[in-house]
Protein backbone atom coordinates (compact mmCIF):
# COMPACT_ATOMS: atom_id res chain seq x y z
CA UNK A 1 0.00 0.00 0.00
CA UNK A 2 2.72 2.46 1.03
CA UNK A 3 4.63 1.69 -2.19
CA UNK A 4 1.50 2.53 -4.20
CA UNK A 5 1.12 5.82 -2.34
CA UNK A 6 4.73 6.70 -3.07
CA UNK A 7 4.31 6.30 -6.82
CA UNK A 8 5.41 9.44 -8.65
CA UNK A 9 2.29 9.45 -10.84
CA UNK A 10 0.21 10.59 -7.85
CA UNK A 11 1.89 14.00 -7.33
CA UNK A 12 2.04 14.48 -11.10
CA UNK A 13 -1.72 13.85 -11.41
CA UNK A 14 -2.42 16.22 -8.49
CA UNK A 15 -0.24 18.89 -10.15
CA UNK A 16 -2.08 18.54 -13.47
CA UNK A 17 -5.56 18.69 -11.88
CA UNK A 18 -4.65 21.69 -9.67
CA UNK A 19 -3.08 23.56 -12.60
CA UNK A 20 -6.11 23.07 -14.84
CA UNK A 21 -8.43 24.14 -12.02
CA UNK A 22 -6.58 27.45 -11.88
CA UNK A 23 -6.07 28.02 -15.61
CA UNK A 24 -9.50 27.13 -17.02
CA UNK A 25 -11.61 29.55 -14.89
CA UNK A 26 -9.12 32.34 -15.72
CA UNK A 27 -10.08 32.16 -19.40
CA UNK A 28 -13.52 30.59 -19.43
CA UNK A 29 -16.54 31.69 -17.41
CA UNK A 30 -18.10 28.57 -15.96
CA UNK A 31 -19.93 29.44 -12.72
CA UNK A 32 -19.54 26.09 -10.89
CA UNK A 33 -15.89 25.83 -11.89
CA UNK A 34 -15.16 29.35 -10.64
CA UNK A 35 -16.83 28.63 -7.29
CA UNK A 36 -14.87 25.39 -7.02
CA UNK A 37 -11.66 27.19 -7.92
CA UNK A 38 -12.28 29.79 -5.17
CA UNK A 39 -12.88 27.10 -2.57
CA UNK A 40 -9.84 25.28 -3.85
CA UNK A 41 -7.65 28.38 -3.39
CA UNK A 42 -8.86 28.74 0.21
CA UNK A 43 -7.92 25.12 0.87
CA UNK A 44 -4.55 25.68 -0.73
CA UNK A 45 -3.85 28.54 1.71
CA UNK A 46 -4.94 26.34 4.62
CA UNK A 47 -2.69 23.47 3.57
CA UNK A 48 0.24 25.85 3.03
CA UNK A 49 -0.34 27.37 6.48
CA UNK A 50 -0.20 23.89 8.00
CA UNK A 51 3.33 23.63 6.58
CA UNK A 52 4.31 26.32 9.13
CA UNK A 53 4.13 23.63 11.79
CA UNK A 54 6.61 21.58 9.78
CA UNK A 55 8.99 24.52 9.80
CA UNK A 56 8.57 25.07 13.53
CA UNK A 57 9.08 21.34 14.18
CA UNK A 58 12.19 21.26 11.96
CA UNK A 59 13.65 24.31 13.69
CA UNK A 60 12.89 22.92 17.17
CA UNK A 61 14.46 19.54 16.40
CA UNK A 62 17.58 21.06 14.87
CA UNK A 63 18.23 23.46 17.76
CA UNK A 64 17.28 20.90 20.44
CA UNK A 65 19.93 18.56 19.02
CA UNK A 66 22.50 21.36 19.08
CA UNK A 67 21.71 22.11 22.71
CA UNK A 68 21.83 18.43 23.66
CA UNK A 69 25.21 17.96 21.96
CA UNK A 70 26.53 21.26 23.27
CA UNK A 71 27.62 22.10 19.69
CA UNK A 72 29.55 25.30 19.04
CA UNK A 73 27.26 28.26 19.66
CA UNK A 74 24.58 26.16 21.39
CA UNK A 75 23.68 29.21 23.48
CA UNK A 76 22.27 30.84 20.34
CA UNK A 77 20.07 27.79 19.85
CA UNK A 78 18.64 28.34 23.34
CA UNK A 79 17.97 31.98 22.43
CA UNK A 80 16.29 30.93 19.16
CA UNK A 81 14.00 28.41 20.87
CA UNK A 82 13.09 30.77 23.72
CA UNK A 83 12.34 33.61 21.27
CA UNK A 84 10.23 31.31 19.13
CA UNK A 85 8.18 30.03 22.08
CA UNK A 86 7.68 33.50 23.60
CA UNK A 87 6.53 35.18 20.37
CA UNK A 88 4.38 32.16 19.49
CA UNK A 89 2.60 32.21 22.86
CA UNK A 90 2.23 35.99 22.95
CA UNK A 91 0.83 36.04 19.42
CA UNK A 92 -1.74 33.29 19.85
CA UNK A 93 -5.10 34.54 18.50
CA UNK A 94 -6.83 34.53 21.92
CA UNK A 95 -7.76 38.18 22.61
CA UNK A 96 -10.10 37.12 25.47
CA UNK A 97 -7.05 36.34 27.62
CA UNK A 98 -4.96 39.25 26.30
CA UNK A 99 -2.95 37.36 23.66
CA UNK A 100 -2.66 38.15 19.95
CA UNK A 101 -1.18 40.94 17.87
CA UNK A 102 -2.28 43.59 20.43
CA UNK A 103 -0.49 41.81 23.27
CA UNK A 104 2.17 44.21 24.70
CA UNK A 105 4.89 41.52 24.75
CA UNK A 106 4.20 40.60 21.12
CA UNK A 107 4.02 44.26 20.18
CA UNK A 108 7.31 45.00 21.96
CA UNK A 109 9.13 42.08 20.34
CA UNK A 110 7.78 42.95 16.91
CA UNK A 111 8.37 46.71 17.04
CA UNK A 112 11.62 46.79 19.02
CA UNK A 113 13.43 43.63 18.01
CA UNK A 114 12.12 42.08 14.79
CA UNK A 115 11.60 45.32 12.84
CA UNK A 116 14.99 46.92 13.73
CA UNK A 117 16.79 43.63 12.98
CA UNK A 118 15.13 43.49 9.56
CA UNK A 119 15.96 47.15 8.90
CA UNK A 120 19.59 46.52 9.91
CA UNK A 121 19.91 43.61 7.53
CA UNK A 122 18.36 45.66 4.75
CA UNK A 123 20.60 48.65 5.36
CA UNK A 124 23.84 46.66 5.26
CA UNK A 125 23.12 46.08 1.58
CA UNK A 126 24.71 49.51 1.05
CA UNK A 127 28.07 48.08 2.18
CA UNK A 128 27.64 45.02 0.01
CA UNK A 129 26.88 47.25 -2.99
CA UNK A 130 30.07 49.21 -2.33
CA UNK A 131 32.26 46.11 -2.15
CA UNK A 132 30.59 44.56 -5.23
CA UNK A 133 31.01 47.81 -7.16
CA UNK A 134 34.68 48.04 -6.14
CA UNK A 135 35.36 44.56 -7.54
CA UNK A 136 33.26 44.81 -10.68
CA UNK A 137 33.90 48.40 -11.83
CA UNK A 138 37.18 47.60 -13.53
CA UNK A 139 37.70 48.20 -17.22
CA UNK A 140 39.07 44.71 -17.97
CA UNK A 141 37.09 44.22 -21.19
CA UNK A 142 34.85 46.18 -23.54
CA UNK A 143 31.71 44.95 -21.74
CA UNK A 144 33.17 45.82 -18.32
CA UNK A 145 34.11 49.27 -19.61
CA UNK A 146 30.54 49.86 -20.82
CA UNK A 147 29.25 48.84 -17.36
CA UNK A 148 31.81 51.14 -15.71
CA UNK A 149 30.95 54.16 -17.87
CA UNK A 150 27.19 53.59 -17.58
CA UNK A 151 27.53 53.16 -13.81
CA UNK A 152 29.45 56.41 -13.44
CA UNK A 153 26.92 58.28 -15.59
CA UNK A 154 24.01 56.88 -13.54
CA UNK A 155 25.72 57.85 -10.28
CA UNK A 156 26.13 61.39 -11.64
CA UNK A 157 22.48 61.36 -12.81
CA UNK A 158 21.30 60.49 -9.29
CA UNK A 159 23.58 62.99 -7.59
CA UNK A 160 22.07 66.51 -7.15
CA UNK A 161 25.57 68.02 -6.93
CA UNK A 162 26.64 66.55 -10.28
CA UNK A 163 23.41 67.45 -12.09
CA UNK A 164 23.67 71.02 -10.79
CA UNK A 165 27.26 71.21 -12.11
CA UNK A 166 26.24 69.83 -15.52
CA UNK A 167 22.50 69.40 -16.23
CA UNK A 168 23.43 67.27 -19.25
CA UNK A 169 23.67 64.25 -16.92
CA UNK A 170 19.83 64.27 -16.70
CA UNK A 171 19.02 63.50 -20.36
CA UNK A 172 21.98 61.09 -20.58
CA UNK A 173 20.79 59.22 -17.46
CA UNK A 174 17.20 59.24 -18.71
CA UNK A 175 18.33 57.76 -22.03
CA UNK A 176 20.42 54.99 -20.39
CA UNK A 177 17.52 54.16 -18.09
CA UNK A 178 14.70 54.22 -20.62
CA UNK A 179 16.42 52.88 -23.76
CA UNK A 180 19.20 50.27 -23.32
CA UNK A 181 18.21 49.36 -19.76
CA UNK A 182 14.48 49.13 -20.52
CA UNK A 183 15.06 47.14 -23.72
CA UNK A 184 17.26 44.62 -21.90
CA UNK A 185 14.82 44.26 -19.01
CA UNK A 186 11.88 43.73 -21.36
CA UNK A 187 13.82 41.11 -23.32
CA UNK A 188 14.61 39.26 -20.08
CA UNK A 189 10.97 39.50 -18.93
CA UNK A 190 9.59 38.18 -22.25
CA UNK A 191 12.19 35.38 -22.29
CA UNK A 192 11.41 34.48 -18.67
CA UNK A 193 7.67 34.35 -19.36
CA UNK A 194 8.26 32.02 -22.31
CA UNK A 195 10.61 29.90 -20.23
CA UNK A 196 7.99 29.66 -17.46
CA UNK A 197 5.35 28.54 -20.01
CA UNK A 198 7.69 25.84 -21.37
CA UNK A 199 8.41 24.72 -17.80
CA UNK A 200 4.67 24.61 -17.08
CA UNK A 201 4.13 22.47 -20.18
CA UNK A 202 6.83 20.03 -19.10
CA UNK A 203 5.25 19.86 -15.62
CA UNK A 204 1.77 19.37 -17.12
CA UNK A 205 3.01 16.59 -19.40
CA UNK A 206 4.75 14.99 -16.43
CA UNK A 207 8.21 15.07 -17.98
CA UNK A 208 9.72 17.73 -15.68
CA UNK A 209 10.19 15.72 -12.50
CA UNK A 210 13.26 17.30 -11.00
CA UNK A 211 11.20 18.90 -8.25
CA UNK A 212 9.64 15.51 -7.36
CA UNK A 213 12.14 13.33 -5.48
CA UNK A 214 14.69 14.06 -8.15
CA UNK A 215 12.38 12.61 -10.76
CA UNK A 216 12.73 9.02 -9.61
CA UNK A 217 9.89 6.50 -9.54
Amino acid at each position, binding site marked *: MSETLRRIEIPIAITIICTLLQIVPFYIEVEPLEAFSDTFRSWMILVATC*ALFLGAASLSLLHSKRIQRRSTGWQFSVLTLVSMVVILLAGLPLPEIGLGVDNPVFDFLFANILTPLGATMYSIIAFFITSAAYRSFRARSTEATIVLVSGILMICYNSPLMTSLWPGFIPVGDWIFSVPNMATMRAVIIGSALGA*IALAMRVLLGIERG*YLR*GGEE
Partner: protein
Amino acid sequence: MAIFVTGRIFGMLSLLAIMGAVTYYIRRARGGKVSEVRRLAGIDAITEAIGRAVEMGRPVFCSHGISDMRDATYGPQTIAGLSVLSYVATQCVDLGARLIVPVRNTEVWPVATDIVETAYKIAGRSDEFNIDDVVYLSSDQFGYSSNYLGMMMREKPGANIMVGAYWAESLQLAETGNRVGAMQVSGTANTHQLAFFVVATDYCLIGEEIFAAGAYVTEDPVFISSIAGQDFGRIIAVGLMILGTILFTFGSDAFVRLLEW
Protein backbone atom coordinates in the same frame (compact mmCIF):
# COMPACT_ATOMS: atom_id res chain seq x y z
CA MET B 1 -22.60 27.38 -21.88
CA ALA B 2 -18.99 28.28 -21.58
CA ILE B 3 -18.14 31.92 -22.27
CA PHE B 4 -14.62 33.24 -22.78
CA VAL B 5 -13.57 36.03 -20.44
CA THR B 6 -13.38 39.32 -22.38
CA GLY B 7 -9.90 40.78 -22.56
CA ARG B 8 -8.21 37.40 -22.11
CA ILE B 9 -9.03 35.67 -25.41
CA PHE B 10 -5.93 36.85 -27.25
CA GLY B 11 -3.77 35.89 -24.27
CA MET B 12 -5.37 32.46 -24.21
CA LEU B 13 -4.76 31.93 -27.94
CA SER B 14 -1.11 33.00 -27.58
CA LEU B 15 -0.68 30.65 -24.63
CA LEU B 16 -2.24 27.77 -26.56
CA ALA B 17 0.01 28.47 -29.56
CA ILE B 18 3.17 28.41 -27.42
CA MET B 19 2.01 25.31 -25.54
CA GLY B 20 1.25 23.66 -28.87
CA ALA B 21 4.74 24.50 -30.13
CA VAL B 22 6.39 23.05 -27.00
CA THR B 23 4.30 19.87 -27.33
CA TYR B 24 5.18 19.64 -31.03
CA TYR B 25 8.91 19.80 -30.35
CA ILE B 26 8.60 17.21 -27.58
CA ARG B 27 6.76 14.83 -29.95
CA ARG B 28 9.31 15.58 -32.67
CA ALA B 29 12.14 14.62 -30.30
CA ARG B 30 10.34 11.39 -29.43
CA GLY B 31 10.28 10.69 -33.16
CA GLY B 32 14.07 11.02 -33.27
CA LYS B 33 14.51 14.63 -34.43
CA VAL B 34 16.40 16.29 -31.64
CA SER B 35 16.87 20.06 -31.53
CA GLU B 36 20.25 21.51 -30.73
CA VAL B 37 20.52 23.80 -27.73
CA ARG B 38 23.47 26.08 -27.01
CA ARG B 39 25.67 25.25 -24.03
CA LEU B 40 24.92 27.09 -20.79
CA ALA B 41 28.22 27.94 -19.14
CA GLY B 42 26.54 28.45 -15.76
CA ILE B 43 25.10 24.93 -15.66
CA ASP B 44 28.29 23.37 -16.97
CA ALA B 45 30.15 25.13 -14.15
CA ILE B 46 28.08 23.47 -11.41
CA THR B 47 29.99 20.19 -11.56
CA GLU B 48 33.29 22.10 -11.58
CA ALA B 49 32.18 24.07 -8.52
CA ILE B 50 31.21 20.90 -6.63
CA GLY B 51 34.48 19.21 -7.61
CA ARG B 52 36.38 22.22 -6.37
CA ALA B 53 34.52 22.11 -3.04
CA VAL B 54 35.40 18.40 -2.66
CA GLU B 55 39.07 19.10 -3.34
CA MET B 56 39.05 21.87 -0.75
CA GLY B 57 37.24 19.67 1.77
CA ARG B 58 34.45 22.20 2.08
CA PRO B 59 30.67 21.78 1.84
CA VAL B 60 28.40 22.85 -1.03
CA PHE B 61 25.54 25.28 -0.46
CA CYS B 62 22.55 25.11 -2.77
CA SER B 63 19.44 27.26 -2.37
CA HIS B 64 16.34 27.72 -4.51
CA GLY B 65 15.27 31.26 -3.69
CA ILE B 66 12.82 32.59 -1.17
CA SER B 67 9.50 32.23 -2.97
CA ASP B 68 6.98 29.44 -2.54
CA MET B 69 5.86 27.05 -5.28
CA ARG B 70 2.32 28.43 -5.58
CA ASP B 71 2.97 31.99 -6.65
CA ALA B 72 1.99 32.49 -10.30
CA THR B 73 4.96 34.77 -11.08
CA TYR B 74 7.72 33.48 -8.83
CA GLY B 75 6.63 29.87 -8.20
CA PRO B 76 8.11 28.59 -11.49
CA GLN B 77 11.50 29.98 -10.42
CA THR B 78 11.31 27.90 -7.24
CA ILE B 79 10.43 24.80 -9.27
CA ALA B 80 13.38 25.53 -11.58
CA GLY B 81 15.61 25.98 -8.50
CA LEU B 82 14.44 22.63 -7.11
CA SER B 83 15.27 20.94 -10.43
CA VAL B 84 18.79 22.35 -10.15
CA LEU B 85 18.92 21.18 -6.52
CA SER B 86 18.05 17.69 -7.72
CA TYR B 87 21.02 17.76 -10.09
CA VAL B 88 23.35 19.28 -7.48
CA ALA B 89 22.30 16.66 -4.90
CA THR B 90 23.07 13.81 -7.32
CA GLN B 91 26.46 15.34 -8.15
CA CYS B 92 27.28 15.91 -4.48
CA VAL B 93 26.44 12.30 -3.60
CA ASP B 94 28.53 11.02 -6.52
CA LEU B 95 31.52 13.21 -5.71
CA GLY B 96 31.21 12.84 -1.95
CA ALA B 97 30.51 16.47 -1.09
CA ARG B 98 28.48 17.54 1.91
CA LEU B 99 25.41 19.41 0.66
CA ILE B 100 23.74 22.08 2.78
CA VAL B 101 20.36 23.42 1.63
CA PRO B 102 19.13 26.59 3.37
CA VAL B 103 15.34 26.85 3.04
CA ARG B 104 13.13 29.88 3.62
CA ASN B 105 9.72 28.48 2.86
CA THR B 106 8.08 25.90 5.10
CA GLU B 107 6.05 24.35 2.28
CA VAL B 108 9.15 23.94 0.12
CA TRP B 109 11.20 22.40 2.94
CA PRO B 110 9.67 18.86 2.70
CA VAL B 111 10.11 18.92 -1.10
CA ALA B 112 13.77 19.92 -0.82
CA THR B 113 14.34 17.29 1.88
CA ASP B 114 12.75 14.61 -0.31
CA ILE B 115 14.92 15.56 -3.29
CA VAL B 116 18.17 15.35 -1.33
CA GLU B 117 17.15 12.17 0.50
CA THR B 118 16.24 10.49 -2.81
CA ALA B 119 19.66 11.32 -4.25
CA TYR B 120 21.29 9.46 -1.34
CA LYS B 121 18.84 6.56 -1.65
CA ILE B 122 19.51 6.11 -5.37
CA ALA B 123 23.24 5.94 -4.64
CA GLY B 124 22.51 3.32 -1.96
CA ARG B 125 23.87 5.58 0.76
CA SER B 126 20.71 6.46 2.70
CA ASP B 127 22.61 6.28 5.99
CA GLU B 128 24.74 9.26 4.94
CA PHE B 129 21.74 11.55 4.51
CA ASN B 130 21.55 14.10 7.31
CA ILE B 131 18.17 15.81 7.53
CA ASP B 132 19.76 18.68 9.49
CA ASP B 133 21.65 19.70 6.34
CA VAL B 134 18.37 20.65 4.65
CA VAL B 135 17.69 23.38 7.11
CA TYR B 136 14.64 25.56 7.45
CA LEU B 137 16.00 28.93 8.56
CA SER B 138 13.20 31.48 8.84
CA SER B 139 10.10 32.62 6.96
CA ASP B 140 11.26 36.20 7.44
CA GLN B 141 13.29 37.44 4.46
CA PHE B 142 16.12 38.96 6.47
CA GLY B 143 15.91 36.32 9.17
CA TYR B 144 16.65 33.87 6.36
CA SER B 145 19.46 35.93 4.87
CA SER B 146 21.18 36.61 8.20
CA ASN B 147 21.04 32.88 9.00
CA TYR B 148 22.38 32.04 5.54
CA LEU B 149 25.24 34.53 5.91
CA GLY B 150 26.10 33.17 9.35
CA MET B 151 26.16 29.60 8.03
CA MET B 152 28.42 30.61 5.16
CA MET B 153 30.84 32.37 7.49
CA ARG B 154 30.96 29.31 9.79
CA GLU B 155 30.98 26.51 7.21
CA LYS B 156 33.08 28.29 4.54
CA PRO B 157 31.49 26.52 1.53
CA GLY B 158 33.63 25.71 -1.50
CA ALA B 159 30.62 26.22 -3.79
CA ASN B 160 27.46 28.27 -3.46
CA ILE B 161 24.72 27.61 -5.99
CA MET B 162 21.69 29.90 -5.92
CA VAL B 163 18.98 29.44 -8.53
CA GLY B 164 15.46 30.74 -7.95
CA ALA B 165 13.57 33.90 -7.02
CA TYR B 166 15.70 36.25 -4.91
CA TRP B 167 15.11 39.77 -3.75
CA ALA B 168 17.17 42.16 -1.60
CA GLU B 169 19.13 39.30 -0.02
CA SER B 170 20.71 38.35 -3.37
CA LEU B 171 23.69 40.68 -3.04
CA GLN B 172 24.18 39.89 0.66
CA LEU B 173 24.43 36.17 -0.14
CA ALA B 174 26.55 36.59 -3.27
CA GLU B 175 29.02 38.98 -1.64
CA THR B 176 29.38 36.80 1.46
CA GLY B 177 29.93 33.77 -0.77
CA ASN B 178 32.64 35.70 -2.54
CA ARG B 179 34.18 36.72 0.79
CA VAL B 180 34.48 33.11 1.98
CA GLY B 181 36.04 32.09 -1.35
CA ALA B 182 33.19 29.99 -2.71
CA MET B 183 32.82 29.39 -6.43
CA GLN B 184 29.36 30.72 -7.14
CA VAL B 185 26.70 29.91 -9.71
CA SER B 186 23.57 32.01 -9.53
CA GLY B 187 20.38 32.43 -11.52
CA THR B 188 17.17 34.35 -11.28
CA ALA B 189 14.40 35.76 -13.45
CA ASN B 190 13.91 38.73 -11.10
CA THR B 191 15.25 41.47 -13.34
CA HIS B 192 15.93 43.88 -10.46
CA GLN B 193 18.35 41.37 -8.86
CA LEU B 194 20.11 40.20 -12.00
CA ALA B 195 22.68 42.98 -11.93
CA PHE B 196 23.75 41.97 -8.42
CA PHE B 197 24.17 38.34 -9.36
CA VAL B 198 26.02 39.21 -12.57
CA VAL B 199 28.64 41.32 -10.81
CA ALA B 200 29.02 39.29 -7.62
CA THR B 201 29.02 35.64 -8.75
CA ASP B 202 31.23 33.64 -11.08
CA TYR B 203 28.45 32.43 -13.37
CA CYS B 204 24.94 33.77 -13.71
CA LEU B 205 21.92 32.21 -15.41
CA ILE B 206 19.81 35.03 -16.79
CA GLY B 207 16.03 34.88 -16.90
CA GLU B 208 14.80 32.05 -19.07
CA GLU B 209 18.05 30.10 -18.64
CA ILE B 210 16.98 29.02 -15.16
CA PHE B 211 13.80 27.46 -16.57
CA ALA B 212 15.84 25.60 -19.14
CA ALA B 213 18.30 24.38 -16.50
CA GLY B 214 16.13 21.50 -15.27
CA ALA B 215 15.77 20.13 -18.79
CA TYR B 216 19.37 20.92 -19.76
CA VAL B 217 21.00 18.98 -16.90
CA THR B 218 19.11 15.78 -17.71
CA GLU B 219 20.68 15.64 -21.21
CA ASP B 220 17.42 13.94 -22.23
CA PRO B 221 16.64 14.85 -25.88
CA VAL B 222 12.89 15.10 -25.15
CA PHE B 223 13.50 17.56 -22.32
CA ILE B 224 15.98 19.57 -24.33
CA SER B 225 13.66 19.77 -27.35
CA SER B 226 10.95 21.34 -25.18
CA ILE B 227 13.29 24.32 -24.84
CA ALA B 228 13.24 24.70 -28.62
CA GLY B 229 9.45 25.13 -28.42
CA GLN B 230 10.09 28.40 -26.59
CA ASP B 231 11.67 29.78 -29.73
CA PHE B 232 8.29 29.63 -31.43
CA GLY B 233 6.94 31.88 -28.67
CA ARG B 234 9.88 34.19 -29.18
CA ILE B 235 9.07 34.45 -32.90
CA ILE B 236 5.43 35.26 -32.03
CA ALA B 237 6.59 37.92 -29.56
CA VAL B 238 8.96 39.57 -32.03
CA GLY B 239 6.32 39.44 -34.82
CA LEU B 240 3.70 41.03 -32.58
CA MET B 241 6.10 43.76 -31.48
CA ILE B 242 6.92 44.66 -35.10
CA LEU B 243 3.24 44.52 -36.11
CA GLY B 244 2.18 46.63 -33.11
CA THR B 245 4.89 49.22 -33.78
CA ILE B 246 3.91 49.58 -37.46
CA LEU B 247 0.16 49.78 -36.78
CA PHE B 248 0.54 52.24 -33.92
CA THR B 249 2.97 54.39 -35.93
CA PHE B 250 0.38 54.73 -38.67
CA GLY B 251 -2.32 55.70 -36.17
CA SER B 252 -4.24 52.43 -36.07
CA ASP B 253 -5.53 51.10 -32.76
CA ALA B 254 -6.33 47.66 -34.26
CA PHE B 255 -3.49 46.03 -32.33
CA VAL B 256 -4.60 47.53 -29.02
CA ARG B 257 -8.13 46.24 -29.70
CA LEU B 258 -6.69 42.83 -30.52
CA LEU B 259 -4.89 42.73 -27.17
CA GLU B 260 -8.09 43.76 -25.42
CA TRP B 261 -10.15 41.12 -27.23
